[in-house]
């Protein structure tokens, strides 16, 4: 029987057998179960993080230490600054839109009988790869100069309304107005964020919908009897009760926004002012072969995400203690 040699090994390595679920006696059997996972994690996740950290303090081919030069460079260099600002834009816009739409759709679909079909339609983009999504949206954003027939959905609709065609993926000025702002509120950034929203709103919607269903109907009815209009029921009862769920969704989305790579890489390769920290890092690593700078960028990314996780963990502990 398959278990026997393993059991033997396990018996040999510690004095008493600890049974799962029984009060702990000094034993090491859990290590057997944990070890494979821990090995993978240490080798592929922990060690690299530590090592990247180390590399970030070294020069481009990792032969000498350069202190915090890479970090200084990262924060003073215009390209990196722009990338950071783009990440901030992603963070705010992507999260707000996905959460907002998610809440709206969760509420709307919850009131119709064909709820699951409608939800499925909106959730589908999560199943496809970013690359496929990039191809799909390349079509939507397709641009032909003025006077030519538009083959992209957006520009076709736009020209039908009398508006000039816009090169959505390239344009840095605000669409249709021709303004260029000092901050990277570029049209093409919005175009990319839209793709992200298209993919992740389904995720937000599904989780928020489950949260919504967890609110007892009688509480909503009590609010109605108490005198609340539908609008007041939403803002003063539903949303507050939903806020822990919203926090969970928002956290996940913020982390996604900070880690964004695929959408930007496939659609614009970070050009035309759409670069984000992740794509920049990739370029430093593979094109410019500057491992020091690439490492610094990666560390910056991690440091940006860390506070969010701390908040999450703290909230998790509070919730567990309340249970």
């Amino acid at each position, binding site marked *: 029987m398959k*278990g026997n040699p393993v059991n033997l090994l396990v018996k040999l390595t510690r004095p008493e057998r600890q049974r*799962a679920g029984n009060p702990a006696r000094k034993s090491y059997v859990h290590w057997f179960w*944990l070890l494979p996972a821990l090995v*993978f994690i240490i080798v592929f996740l922990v060690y690299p993080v530590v090592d990247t950290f180390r590399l970030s303090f070294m020069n481009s081919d990792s032969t000498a230490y350069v202190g915090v030069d890479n970090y200084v460079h990262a924060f003073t260099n215009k390209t990196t600054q722009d990338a950071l600002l783009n990440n901030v834009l992603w963070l705010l816009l992507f999260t707000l839109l996905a959460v907002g739409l998610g809440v709206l759709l969760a509420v709307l679909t919850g009131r119709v009988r064909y709820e699951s079909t409608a939800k499925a339609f909106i959730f589908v983009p999560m199943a496809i790869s970013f690359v496929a999504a990039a191809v799909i949206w*390349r079509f939507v954003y397709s641009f032909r100069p003025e006077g030519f*027939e538009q083959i992209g959905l957006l520009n076709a609709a736009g020209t039908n309304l009398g508006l000039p065609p816009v090169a959505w993926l390239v344009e840095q000025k605000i669409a249709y107005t021709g303004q260029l702002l000092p901050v990277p509120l570029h049209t093409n950034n919005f175009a990319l964020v839209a793709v992200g929203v*298209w993919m992740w709103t389904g995720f937000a919607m599904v989780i928020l919908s489950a949260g919504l269903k967890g609110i007892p109907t009688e509480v909503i009815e009590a609010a109605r009897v108490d005198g609340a209009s539908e609008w007041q029921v939403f803002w003063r009862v539903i949303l507050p009760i939903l806020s822990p769920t919203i926090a969970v969704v928002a956290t996940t989305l913020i982390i996604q926004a900070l880690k964004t790579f695929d959408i930007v890489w*496939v659609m614009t390769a970070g050009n035309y002012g759409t670069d984000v920290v992740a794509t920049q890092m990739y370029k430093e690593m593979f094109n410019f072969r500057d491992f020091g700078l690439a490492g610094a960028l990666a560390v910056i990314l991690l440091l940006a995400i860390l506070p969010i996780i701390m908040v999450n963990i703290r909230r998790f502990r509070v919730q567990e203690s309340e249970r």
Partner: protein
Amino acid sequence: MKRVEAQATPGSSGFRIALKKLASRSPLHIAVVVIALLWMTPAFGLLVSSFRPPTEVASTGWWTAFQTPFQFTLDNYDAVLSQAGMARSFLNSLIVSIPGTVIPILVASFAAFAFAWMKFRGRDVLFMFVVALLVVPIQMTLIPVLRLLADIRLVGTFPGIWLAHTAYGLPFAIFLLRNFFAVLPKELLESAYLDGASNMRVFFRLILPLSVPAIASLTIFQFLWVWNDLLVALVYLQDPSKAPMTVTINNLVSSFGTQWQLLTAAAFISMALPLVLFFALQRYFVEGITTGAVKG
């Protein structure tokens, strides 16, 4: 003072009320239907384009394809499968994804069992640490892991990428499975131990069979994640003959302009499997992400 008129025929007032209800709720229905359709439109556009000849794709929008003369063709799929090596890529995707799903789930379930049912010092701290690793951007691990794989000569090999995907998938898998294992009935396990079962037996004969829904969810998640991945494949699996579909499409995209029609077919083929999986197993997919995300 309004009075509801007494109806001669029972049920007819019910019909009137139903009609009134429909009218007042039609904004809702319109909103939902329009949004759902709009959401599918981009993907739908792609599907239509994939059946159009290259000249059409390059010059007119896909919506015009529904006017006569109809010019649908299967050429794109044919070309993509035979010439652009898509069939090979599909196979590669399978070769990467299947072990890349099975191994992490196996390893994670072992660890999750320990976290859920064994008491040892530092258990909760270690668990939180593992879950915290969810935030590590993969980019942070690329350089060191690449070097490591190079040192043991696994760059550009399938086993190399299997190991990588296993590690990357572990935090989420352990999180999901541990939460599920933890709420299995304690009495069931205790009576098994009283009967003399070993940990191994309990694991394979009790825990796993009882956890099928969670494992199903996780399988779908992990499979889709690996299937749709681009970055990890780009970095660790540099051999072009081993490229999965995401990489192949990425290459096609970079070769701007001329290959659009191939691109549409290629993208759609890569989407086919996930879409089928998704629609068939929607419930597990959805259940998977809501477990643990929504606190009661």
